[in-house]
């Protein structure tokens, strides 16, 4: 029986009972209980089933290292699997379910796996399921997926919210035990900005539980006083329920703060991820007790000695009436004494050391506890609960000397410092033979940018196990009442000569069901590296990341390899220390804040008028088409094109990049950036330009206008605006730093509208205020003025092939300007058109589109844009590259138009196959389509393609492949399908 004691339980408030539900059963606990302590108080020792063999499992530990007690927690939109009972505090209304069993926790079908355990050794899955190959996909994998996994996957959207928080400090102290408190106090007194984070709700760590006296005061008084001193310091911030999850380069640290996990009231953020920059990090993360490897060490009721003590002292819970303590060190004696003092029975302390313990042994014996030296546990009896232990000699092979009835076994295999934070950024470890533990190697700390250590480690995390040594390590000299301790004796198997039968039920990794025999098998099969053994056996790969199993596992491996522990080494410690929620990582970035959506000033009108949105250039939303009732998207696109060609259309072109380039050297600068001349552009004129990178490849294009003697405005593509601006600044700041040029990205200063179509001029004339005649503003010219009361810059440029004006007004006036155009254009049949109509109309005109005709490997020559490559200039970015032999080769694929013979539309991405195969056995190709559309103007499919020697093959019929495996015939034609002479745009 595990039960609640009448007294003790410093963490719980007996005046505040809470009720929670476990597998539909209503259970009671107290405020301050963890789920584990509350379950134990209700005699619910069995808490789950293991991953592989579905063995009954109870809680082993009392903290973050717990491997077994994981639950499906919450329901519906607050459901979450794999929640650790030892770190989850209970609250009124908490609902939990046990995991990994069917049909119930008490009776589980999967437990038959145990009977086959002989045939389910390490590597079983690899060996078994590799043949026959197709079986994996169709038989094995679906079956394994069904039976694998611990918790269930949440099915509903998370109801909780999360956030991030940026914090800066001089010293970050991880851990609120006595070492962390002392370290924080020391740094605080030095005037440093200190942040102290403690993962639990409680400060003081083990010192308080163990009832140590520090300078004559109880540890709890010492903790309370130190905490009060810290809280009184302006420069110190102390937070509990905030775990340091990871240490990263440059003093970056993640803190995982749990705000509402312990409350019934779930309002406000659930978790807060602290993104900390710390000048210096002090790891005071304590140590974790190791299990001992003996037969049946996973049966519910076998627990860490320190955990048994924690449950009594912290939560007033006894884990059993009769507890046998088994140990290889002095510390577990404290558990025996604590239990005895709490009125519980301790039939024996089984001490593997033949010499026994130090002075504490006398204390135990004085209380009437029998100490059995040089002994070991041969077997634990019981199935769903410990019923007794069989005792043998540690030095032997397991012959039973006597049997002791008990319902709890408290084991201690020694302590392992929590070196995770020291190791995350590369701090190295030393094996300490005397203490049988890995300790931080002070010679090889994690190094910061300055080559100095940026993480230090104090207290038990540094391998100090006595209170006086812990505080001395943190800079405080104190006297304590702790007795001297006898040395630990490393025990990696119990008894040391255990045969295969005992070894195959001696668990190393509880969560992943890895046994001593599995690691030994891996060694036999040649897995010498600890990293390989880990992956082969899955040792330490579960959600607890091997906090209990790693050291025992690698000690077992080193023994099996006849090597030493330091020679085998550890696996890599990676953040996070314990799993953190995806919600915390996401922070505020969910729903409408998941990603920024860039909106033009006319966004709301579009949205209210059937806009089918398309993401463009990253975060912009542009209207693909304005779909009316009863129309398909395709209908809408065709209608928009026909109307633009016949009447007049409006396009929201506000997203186009606009960059001001000004200065005495601006002309020279633009001549280098663009392939054609911009310095000789006349004021008031527009010129289309191409921009290449240093490798000669087309990068961006757009219309450049000259505003005055030394000012140009460069239009870029929507997606290229930010990059082009960066590109300009890069050259100006890093290469041509002495050129006098300033740039400014004014993309968002203007709302820009293209008014295109034969009736475009009439619409602007109706608005009035500016002369927009051909004589006043010729093709490729612009004028500033007032149009219908709006401050406007009117450009005569055309991407549609129609008579077209692009009008820029201040963004704040954009929505009103759009409304005014619709009103003025009503009598001329004005209709807005979207990006798809724009794409098709430009394709009908044979205009290229960056990102369609180009893909980062295309040079202007490929697109027959030789006319835009200045021969007058000595240089421009990309010129040299374009002269290289491969770029100048006549064999490059070049742009042509193609028309299918049957009028159909060529499929997106279609290739033009060529005869034969290449050396890799792939079909040869001689071209590919770059843009392909149905043209409502021509009432047939049109396309542009890059084809080998294309322009020389006009009129030739080639074949494009189709998804259904057939081919479609198409004729190579001029890429300008519509108004070849440009008469329409030039009226």
């Amino acid at each position, binding site marked *: 029986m595990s039960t609640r004691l009448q007294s003790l339980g410093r963490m719980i408030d007996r005046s505040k009972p809470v009720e929670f539900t476990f597998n539909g059963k209503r259970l009671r606990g107290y405020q301050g209980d963890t789920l584990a302590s509350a379950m134990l108080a209700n005699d619910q020792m069995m808490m789950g089933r293991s991953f592989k063999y579905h063995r009954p499992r109870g809680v082993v530990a009392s903290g973050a290292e717990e491997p077994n007690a994981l639950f499906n927690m919450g329901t519906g939109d607050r459901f979450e699997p794999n929640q650790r009972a030892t770190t989850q505090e209970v609250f009124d209304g908490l609902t939990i379910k046990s995991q990994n069993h069917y049909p119930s926790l008490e009776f589980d079908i999967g437990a038959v796996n145990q009977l086959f355990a002989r045939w389910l050794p390490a590597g079983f899955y690899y060996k078994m399921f590799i043949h026959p190959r197709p079986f994996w996909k169709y038989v094995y994998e679906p079956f394994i997926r069904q039976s694998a996994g611990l918790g269930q996957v949440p099915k509903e959207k998370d109801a909780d*919210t999360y*956030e*991030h*928080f*940026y*914090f*800066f400090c001089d010293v970050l102290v991880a851990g609120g035990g006595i070492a962390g408190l002392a370290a924080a106090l020391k740094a605080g007194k030095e005037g440093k*900005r200190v942040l102290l984070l403690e993962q639990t709700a409680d400060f003081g760590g083990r010192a308080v539980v163990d009832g140590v006296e520090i300078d004559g005061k109880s540890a709890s008084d010492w903790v309370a006083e130190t905490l009060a001193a810290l809280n009184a310091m302006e420069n110190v*911030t102390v*937070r509990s329920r905030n775990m340091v999850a990871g240490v990263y380069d440059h003093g970056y640290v993640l803190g995982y703060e749990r705000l509402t996990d312990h409350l019934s009231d779930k309002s*406000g*953020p659930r978790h*807060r991820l602290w*993104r900390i*920059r710390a000048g210096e990090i002090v790891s005071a993360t304590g140590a974790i007790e190791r299990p001992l490897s003996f037969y049946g060490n996973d049966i519910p009721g076998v627990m860490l000695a320190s955990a048994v003590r924690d449950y009594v002292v912290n939560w007033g819970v006894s884990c059993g009436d009769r507890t046998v303590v088994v140990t290889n060190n002095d510390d577990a004696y404290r558990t025996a004494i604590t239990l005895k003092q709490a009125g519980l029975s301790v039939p024996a302390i089984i001490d593997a050391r033949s010499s026994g313990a130090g002075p504490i042994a006398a204390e135990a014996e004085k209380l009437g506890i029998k100490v059995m030296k040089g002994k070991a546990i041969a077997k634990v009896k019981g199935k769903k609960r410990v019923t007794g232990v069989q005792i043998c000699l540690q030095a032997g092979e397991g012959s039973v000397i006597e049997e002791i009835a008990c319902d709890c076994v408290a084991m201690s295999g020694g302590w392992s410092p929590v070196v995770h934070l020291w190791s995350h950024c590369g701090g190295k470890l030393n094996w300490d033979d005397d203490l049988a533990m890995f300790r931080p190697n002070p010679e090889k700390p994690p190094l910061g940018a300055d080559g100095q250590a940026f993480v230090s480690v104090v207290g038990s995390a540094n391998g100090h196990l006595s209170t006086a040594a812990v505080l001395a390590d943190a800079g405080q000299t104190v006297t304590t009442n702790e007795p001297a301790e006898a040395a630990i004796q490393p025990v990696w198997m119990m008894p040391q000569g255990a045969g295969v039968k005992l070894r195959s039920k001696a668990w190393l990794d509880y969560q992943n069901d890895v046994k001593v025999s599995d690691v030994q098998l891996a060694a036999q099969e040649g897995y010498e590296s600890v990293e390989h053994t880990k992956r082969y056996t899955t040792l330490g790969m579960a959600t607890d990341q091997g906090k209990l199993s790693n050291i025992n596992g690698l000690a077992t491996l080193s023994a099996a390899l006849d090597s030493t522990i330091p020679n085998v080494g550890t696996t890599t410690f990676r953040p996070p220390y314990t799993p953190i929620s995806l919600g915390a990582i996401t*922070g*505020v*970035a969910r729903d*409408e*804040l998941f*990603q*920024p*959506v*860039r*909106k*033009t*000033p006319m966004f709301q009108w579009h949205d209210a008028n059937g806009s089918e949105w398309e993401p463009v250039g990253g*975060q*912009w939303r542009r209207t693909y088409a304005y779909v009316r009732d009863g129309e398909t998207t395709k209908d809408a696109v065709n209608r928009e094109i026909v109307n633009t060609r016949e009447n007049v259309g409006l396009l929201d072109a506000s997203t186009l990049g606009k960059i*001001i380039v*000004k*200065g*005495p050297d601006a002309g020279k600068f633009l001549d280098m950036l663009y392939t054609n001349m911009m310095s000789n552009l006349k004021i008031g004129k527009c010129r289309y330009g191409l921009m290449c990178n240093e490798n000669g490849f087309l990068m961006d294009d757009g219309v450049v206008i000259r505003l005055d003697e030394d000012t140009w405005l460069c239009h870029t593509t929507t997606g290229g605006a930010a990059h082009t601006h960066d590109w300009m600044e890069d050259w100006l700041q890093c290469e041509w730093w002495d050129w*006098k040029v*300033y*740039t*400014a990205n*004014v*993309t*968002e*200063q*203007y709302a820009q509208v293209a008014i295109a179509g034969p009736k475009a001029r009439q619409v602007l004339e109706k608005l009035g205020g500016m002369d927009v005649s051909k004589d006043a503003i010729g093709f490729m010219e612009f004028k500033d003025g007032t149009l219908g*009361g*709006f401050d406007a810059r009117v450009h005569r440029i055309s991407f549609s092939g129609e008579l077209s004006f692009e009008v820029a007004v*201040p*963004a*704040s*006036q954009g*929505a*009103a*300007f759009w409304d005014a155009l619709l009103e003025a254009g009503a009598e001329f049949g004005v209709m807005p058109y979207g990006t798809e109509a724009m794409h098709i109309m430009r394709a009908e005109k044979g205009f290229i589109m960056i990102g369609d005709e180009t893909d980062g490997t295309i040079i202007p020559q490929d697109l027959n844009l030789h006319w835009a490559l200045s021969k007058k200039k000595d240089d421009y970015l990309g010129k040299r590259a374009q002269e290289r032999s491969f770029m100048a080769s006549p064999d490059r694929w070049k742009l042509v138009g193609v028309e299918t013979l049957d009028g159909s539309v060529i499929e997106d991405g279609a290739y033009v196959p060529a005869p034969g195969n290449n050396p890799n056995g792939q079909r040869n190709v001689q071209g590919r389509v770059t843009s392909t559309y149905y043209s409502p103007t021509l009432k047939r499919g049109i396309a542009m393609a890059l084809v080998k020697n294309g322009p020389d093959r006009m009129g030739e019929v080639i074949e494009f492949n189709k998804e259904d495996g057939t081919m479609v015939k198409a004729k190579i034609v001029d890429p300008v399908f519509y108004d070849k002479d440009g008469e329409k745009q030039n009226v």
Partner: protein
Amino acid sequence: MSNAVSALNGQEAKGDVTVRELGLTGMITLRGDFEDENFGAALSQITGAGVPDVRHFVQAGDFTVLWMSPDELLVILPYEKAAETVAAFDAALKGTHFLAVNVSDARALISISGDFANEVLAKLSPVDMSADRFTAGMVRRTRLAQVAAAFWMLPDGSYNLMCFRSVADYAFGLLSTSAKAGKVGAI
């Protein structure tokens, strides 16, 4: 002018920390050589303010001049005055190498005021917002979650934040959500 509407048209989210869009505001990007006598003279003649210290701003009457980079300032002024002030810079600095450009419409300006306004910003920007590190008169160009932003602290302890107009909705959503989520109580 009567047609001009700011990005969020004065939207406000009231609470312990109030987030409010400040409506149409004049802004001029001014680039030039801060060491140049003409530049300093023109700046103080037109705005009444001198060149601010690195990552600081100065206020003079209607004008606030913010340091943006070693060769860039931002002049904040009444919306109606932006065009004429650009013209004034153009006239005063004629013949020197400089750039004055009206960017009033390209941005949105949002005020964050109240008890824990600094913590609201610290939830979204990687900036040390502790009271003794980020003080009145300081300005920081940084990011707000996933977008570029700049903010500065006014003498009354509130903050003004500037972002691009197209992401005003997003920025407002971030700030109001973070304000509503409450105090951290750490800085």
